[in-house]
């Protein structure tokens, strides 16, 4: 073989190789997935992608951490404007209306699944979870990924010290107030605190009592919803909490999930917050603790109904290739698998999104081994009503901030409950009107 011939062989071999690798790259379609899951939950997301990628050869899901929920949404907005949005974007529940209203930005998950040939049966999903992300026409818009709901945690050791029974934790607000008084009499400085005050004390409180927070089924039926959170029931509850604050029975510990630290440290004996807080408590609390349902007022007809979810869902962005959408659908189909769902539920404490996954988890004896972990699920797997299906408000981020601002005025004793709630209604409605105006002009 002459040198020339040899090099020719080498060249053709190289060409064949590069062709092969090229083919390989083409065969595997990459799906970009932007998410906001940190630490333990970040590992969970990576594992999901890894397992899915190992389960088949055609698609490769690439999870990318893009900062907190609002940061990743801002990043997606910028990317979309520049024409390189990801395929899948994880968006928190308060961003739902914004995503829905931005026409041409997203492709409904229902359509993605159908186009890819997967049969899509909304009935297999937990109603209060899937309903939250379903359009008025019954089409699933985004894929419910990590959903939590509002529950009640209490410190069993503190209860015992104050002589309160731990077998039957306080289920109603009068019972909570009574327990708080006993704790205080026993020298406890912070009997009760609440995290995510707008979500737990106004939003979930409303659906739990089958009462509207806003008209149009809390905005689920249309953008012309208006706030009605100053009803006598709401006023009564906030007034009660305001009075408890004055007596030192309820201690305000800040916005968002900031107050959670005071429960884990043992400073506060009771807290209403997300079911997703469970992992933290289980890992860090140095005392016996219990989980129970969100307190309610027993004299309200229809209560308790169901609590409302928080957390995030996965949205499919528009403008991608058909093949890529097929990959997204295959991935969602994988996520819906009862075993995958159940494993995720056990691992993270987020709600299962299908009924089958709940039954599978129950059958595995997980709830018996970890008492209280089924609280959140039991609050959710009821048949929802028009008033309790979910909450979908435009400019929700601003409305949450308004709820925080006004409630703080009540806890500080600067405003009465009625004044603050009236103000939430007026200021909230300004936001809703503006959102409606900005988003209906083009329809």
């Amino acid at each position, binding site marked *: 073989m002459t040198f020339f011939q040899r090099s020719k062989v080498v060249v053709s071999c190289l060409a064949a190789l590069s062709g092969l690798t090229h083919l390989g790259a083409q065969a595997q379609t990459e799906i970009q997935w932007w998410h906001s899951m940190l630490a333990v939950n970040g590992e969970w997301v990576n594992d999901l992608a890894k397992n899915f990628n190992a389960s088949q050869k055609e698609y490769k899901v690439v999870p990318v951490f893009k900062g907190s929920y609002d940061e990743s949404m801002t990043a997606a907005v910028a990317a979309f404007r520049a024409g390189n949005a990801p395929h899948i974007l994880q968006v928190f529940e308060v961003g739902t209306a914004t995503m829905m209203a931005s026409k041409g930005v997203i492709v409904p998950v229902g359509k993605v699944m159908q186009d890819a040939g997967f049969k899509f049966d909304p009935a297999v999903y937990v109603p209060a979870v899937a309903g939250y992300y379903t359009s008025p026409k019954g089409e699933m818009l985004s894929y419910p990924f990590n959903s939590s709901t509002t529950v009640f945690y209490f410190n069993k050791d503190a209860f015992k010290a104050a002589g309160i029974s731990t077998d039957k934790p306080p289920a109603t607000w009068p019972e909570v107030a009574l327990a708080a008084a006993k704790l205080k009499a026993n020298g406890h400085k912070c009997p009760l605190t609440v995290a995510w005050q707008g979500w737990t004390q106004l939003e979930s409180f409303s659906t739990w009592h089958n009462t509207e927070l806003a008209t149009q089924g809390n905005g689920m039926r249309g953008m012309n919803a208006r706030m009605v959170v100053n009803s006598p029931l709401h006023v009564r509850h906030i007034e009660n909490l305001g009075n408890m604050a004055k007596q030192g029975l309820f201690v305000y510990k800040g916005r968002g999930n900031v107050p959670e630290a005071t429960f884990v440290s043992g400073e506060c004996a009771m807290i209403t917050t997300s079911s997703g807080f469970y992992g933290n408590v289980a890992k860090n609390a140095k005392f016996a603790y219990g989980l129970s349902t969100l307190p309610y007022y027993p004299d309200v007809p229809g209560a308790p109904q169901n609590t409302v979810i928080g957390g995030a869902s996965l949205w499919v962005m528009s403008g991608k290739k058909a093949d890529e959408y097929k990959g997204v659908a295959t991935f969602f189909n994988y996520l819906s698998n009862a075993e995958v769902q159940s494993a995720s539920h056990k691992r993270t404490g987020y709600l299962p999104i299908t009924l089958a996954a709940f039954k599978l988890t129950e059958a595995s004896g997980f709830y018996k081994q970890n008492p209280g972990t089924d609280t959140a699920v039991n609050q959710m797997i009821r048949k929802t009503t028009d008033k309790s299906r979910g909450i979908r408000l435009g400019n929700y981020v*601003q409305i949450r901030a308004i709820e925080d601002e006004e409630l703080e005025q009540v806890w500080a004793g600067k405003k009465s409950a009625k004044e603050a709630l009236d103000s939430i209604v007026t200021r909230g409605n300004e936001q809703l009107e503006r959102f409606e105006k900005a988003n209906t002009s083009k329809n």
Partner: protein
Amino acid sequence: MLIAPQVSVICIFFFWPALQALLQSLQQSDAFGTSVEWVGFANFQRLWQDASYLESFQTTAVFSSLVAVLGIGISLCLAYFADRVVRGTVVYRTLLIWPYAVAPAVAGVVWLFLFSPSIGVVSYALNQWGFEWNALLNSRHAMALIVMAAVWKQISYNFLFFLAGLQSIPKSLIEAAAMDGAGPWHRFWTIQFPLLSPTSFFLLVINVVYAFFDTFGIVDAATKGGPGKDTAILVYKVYFDGFKALDLGGSAAQSVVLMVIVVALTVVQFRFVEKKVNY
């Protein structure tokens, strides 16, 4: 030609964004910009109708003047003493300059940790002495918290300039005054302070701009504008509406307002305060 790079940098990084803000302030669009609508001055109109926005002017005025006055006052004091220190100058100066390297959000978090009602070291001590510190519900405490964080962060910058200013004053002047029997206090007020006035004036402008534009990170980390809206200064609202709530039109309108205010303030400072400055 030689200043062309400089000019282009200013155009790209200052004038172009400012122009963009102006344009966006006249538009209303959804978050993703799929529908952009010209709305004229509607965004501005809405601002003036919003009572809480008008209140935030007052909050901003209080905050900015506290930050500027305290920041300049304290750092002048520190610079004066650091200038007189004979031994260990380097150590003092380095320590005083350090905070400038800290990002605003981190400064907010540091001070939040010190003063958090549940876990803060300082708030624990205050409570032990019978002072009920609660920045979560008491707006004065919350304001004090962000002012402290903002001032602490800016002191280094001011300190550097004052120190340089003090050191550029000829020693012979001060020594001559000392020979004539003027005490340190007297010397400071009659010689050093007047000679520092260009520095002080420059720092006044810089500090006001800092308080107006650069402090949203501190507010976001320490109070989120609460309790109520009592620490929601203008720039925090711009940040919140734009980057958290994705209301770009409203946010742009606010930043235009802010821009106008700062330009006006700077003009006023140059017009009136500068006259009192001796060069």
